[in-house]
């Protein structure tokens, strides 16, 4: 791990290509995720930000090949370097891959922890089911606990109900990292936490990531969490990625009107509050996503005739920065 950290590996921990996930509603199939291409670079945290109904959670489920009916993966591939395309796996090999290649931290970890088993026991179970050495895994678990300022002796012998919300979330992170998967999926890891616990968990994730250089996908609706944690960000709207790039670039020079409006709609502690402008309109629901043309045009202040016809493709607007908008350069405001 240490050597990996030293030399930055120029490869992807996961590549998503042409991913389309549809849901069946009353004899019609609607795309919750439409034609998504996304690379998860090794050793970095890639955020997927979007509102409810943007498809970010469906995307995460597809990365685990765990889309539940009435949903179905209609097209595309999700390739992990060692295991290949997860969408072609099933049964035992699929379960193996979940944990070996990709693991998940849930919004509410208490729902994912076994209430009848001690935390240490759960770590050992995890190791056994993936053919790892339980003792080594337990050592790793202790090490992770220490890094997260958890008392390992106490936590590993506890049941989940004996831990506080923030501690449970840290335990969830520990269990997700203990098998050293290629990608960790963080699904709204701090949303259910209180403000102070949130900042602590963010700090822990940041420190762990800096030290271990794991690759992660962060699913969130909160631009603040993205800014604090993610190296890169993909902005999702109505099932499509409308902008992606390095977090700093997207924050300072957002190109897509949605990203711009989203950032401007966040009240901030610094600066002039009159700069905060609400985003007009409402995000579309699954059944009302326009099937042609730009998905954002109904709320866009810069709508042009061409926006009604064809969804703009993601095109480079700067180094390592893509955006799906026909508009070139913003009117200054």
């Amino acid at each position, binding site marked *: 791990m240490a050597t990996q950290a030293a030399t930055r590996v120029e490869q992807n921990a996961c590549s998503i290509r042409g991913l389309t996930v549809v849901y069946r509603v009353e004899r019609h199939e609607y795309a919750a995720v439409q034609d998504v291409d996304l690379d998860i670079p090794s050793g970095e945290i890639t955020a997927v930000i979007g509102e409810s109904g943007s498809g970010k959670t469906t995307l995460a489920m597809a990365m685990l090949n765990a889309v539940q009916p009435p949903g179905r993966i209609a097209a595309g591939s999700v390739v992990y370097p060692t295991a290949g395309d997860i969408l072609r796996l099933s049964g035992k090999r699929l379960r193996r891959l979940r944990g070996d290649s990709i693991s998940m931290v849930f919004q509410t970890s208490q729902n994912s922890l076994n209430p009848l088993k001690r935390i240490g026991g759960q770590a050992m179970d995890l190791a056994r089911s993936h053919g790892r050495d339980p003792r080594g895994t337990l050592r790793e678990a202790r090490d992770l606990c220490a890094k997260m300022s958890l008392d390992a002796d106490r936590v590993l012998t506890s049941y989940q109900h004996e831990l506080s919300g923030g501690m449970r979330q840290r335990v969830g992170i520990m269990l997700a990292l203990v098998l050293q998967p290629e990608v960790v999926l963080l699904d709204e890891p701090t949303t259910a936490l209180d403000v*102070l616990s949130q900042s602590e968990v963010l700090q822990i994730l940041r420190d762990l990531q800096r030290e271990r250089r794991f690759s992660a996908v962060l699913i969130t609706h909160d631009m603040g969490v993205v800014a604090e944690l993610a190296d890169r960000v993909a902005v999702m709207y109505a099932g499509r990625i409308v902008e992606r790039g390095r977090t700093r670039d997207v924050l300072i020079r957002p190109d897509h009107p949605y990203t711009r*409006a989203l950032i401007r709609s966040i009240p901030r502690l610094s600066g002039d509050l009159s700069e905060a402008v609400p985003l007009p309109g409402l995000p579309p629901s699954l059944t009302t996503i326009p099937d042609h043309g730009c998905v954002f045009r109904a709320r866009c202040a810069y709508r042009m005739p061409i926006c009604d016809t064809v969804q703009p493709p993601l095109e480079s607007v700067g180094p390592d920065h893509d955006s799906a908008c026909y508009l070139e350069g913003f009117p200054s405001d």
Partner: protein
Amino acid sequence: MIELIDIKKTFQGRTGMLSTADVHALRGVSLSIENGGALALLGESGCGKTTLGRILAGLETYDSGDIVIDGTSLNGAPKGERDRLQRKIQLIHQDPYAALNPVRTIEKSLTAPLKLRAKQSGKDKGWVEQRARELLTIVGLDPDEVLYKYPHNLSGGQRQRVVIARALTVDPTVLVADEAVSMIDVSLRLGILQLLNDLRRRLKIAVVFITHDVAAARYVALDGDICVIYRGEIFEYGRTDDVIHAPVNPYTQSLLSAVPVLVGLERPGPDRFIPLEELVTGRAVSGCLFSDRCPFAVEVCHQDHPDLLPIEELSRLNRCFFPTVRHVTAVSASGEASA
């Protein structure tokens, strides 16, 4: 003007089969809200801010203390008068979907309280219908669009607007918004906050904004006050931007430190810190209630209980033995220090 005077509230908690432990939700809170003013109650969940909001709206009793509304003490007033006064203080709940009856249309939800008023003041049916449409327009909704829908047909933001419209049916003087945007999509939140500001300006309705989100509190109460509550006690109380940009209490500072920084657009405050451990609600703490988590706590903090004292030069109330301004709040990256 509404004044809360030394409000105390204790819940009987149950910790085990036989043992009970009292939860001190409020340990003597005094504060005031100007007519048409804005006050943000800030704190973690479990700090007592929600209980305080419910007491204000008359949905919860208090053990001791008094509420004085425009000079009338609620303790002394007869029950009818007390109900009438507290009805002017309306609570906006966190979850707008739960706050609306799922099997009644928006029209029914709005006209029912209006009919009650019409009966009391002798207005006719036409007034009820017209007023319902008017209120929906005030909260930024198209009456034709939403009137005959059910709550599940609306988006979160629309539902919260309907809830606000329903609160307006009784012509309230105060809206108590309890985490009113935390369950709403990010892109729609600012719209609701703006609506609250709008109601203050246009209808002179005071807003008590209960939240853990300091930035939202700043937006709503920019020209008002922030009151930071921890474990049922006020820790810091002052003008909003003063408290945000020059906090003196370590608890306020830890809340401000926890606000995510939009790195690139903002720079984190140089003194930013994280408290020592998580809030354990049931735990008994001697001395200052924050001393077990405070990174700056010294001997005296663990022994003596600090009082809420004014700091003259800052026109601020503070509960800490060592009030110290720390720069924990993010500042704009463009260089200029925020006002």
